């Protein structure tokens, strides 16, 4: 179980900005989120960076209840 932070187009596709999602690794959490939120979300995740606590992390990174996982689609600030 980790806290998922969904930003910009990912937030829109999921319909929520935050979610609690099961999984012991980053890969598990994302797989469960994909299953929960469906196709538009899956497509956005595929072109997003995944951060654990604000930093890039590999898919086998272990995560727990104190970790925040952010789905970061391509950015357009400024």
């Amino acid at each position, binding site marked *: 179980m980790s806290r998922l*932070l969904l*930003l*910009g*187009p990912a*937030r*829109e596709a999921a319909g929520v900005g935050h979610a609690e999602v099961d999984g012991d690794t980053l890969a598990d959490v994302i797989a469960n989120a994909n299953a929960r939120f469906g196709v538009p979300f899956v497509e956005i995740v595929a*072109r997003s*960076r995944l951060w654990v606590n*604000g930093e*890039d992390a590999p898919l086998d990174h272990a995560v727990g209840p104190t970790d925040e996982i*952010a789905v*970061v*689609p*391509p*950015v*357009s*600030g*400024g």
Partner: protein
Amino acid sequence: MVVREENEWVAVSAQPLRPDDLATWVTRADCGAVVTFCGVARSTSSFEHEIVELEYETDVALAESRIRDVVAVARDRWPVVRAIAIHHRIGTVKNREPAVVVAVASPHRREAFDAAQFCIDALKRTVPMWKREVWEGGSAWSEDAQDIVDVGDLAP
């Protein structure tokens, strides 16, 4: 959120931006040059509509942290620069209003220009921020988006 230190003032908020406030704040007694960049909401885009306003969205804590990373790298590359302020607005930004302001003060102008340009270039590549373009009767995420990178991975 606002982080205001001696030589660094970073803010991400829904407040209207006041470029002169940043320019005045960065100016130190030994600074002869202040460069201010305003990224302004504009009417034209890749869509076939006249844009009337933009909607910016982010996680404020993450965005602010990444902007501070940009400032840290700029201060490291141009140690002569005395102070840097970067404010990014979120929420609705109407046409001709600034969405982001960067202000840099330095004893001489070359470093102020270079550091200001680096800051806005780096901000656009490294800070989590999403722009929705709003026209009469519709809206869409900006097509002008790039994969986010870490500021340390930008070419020097």
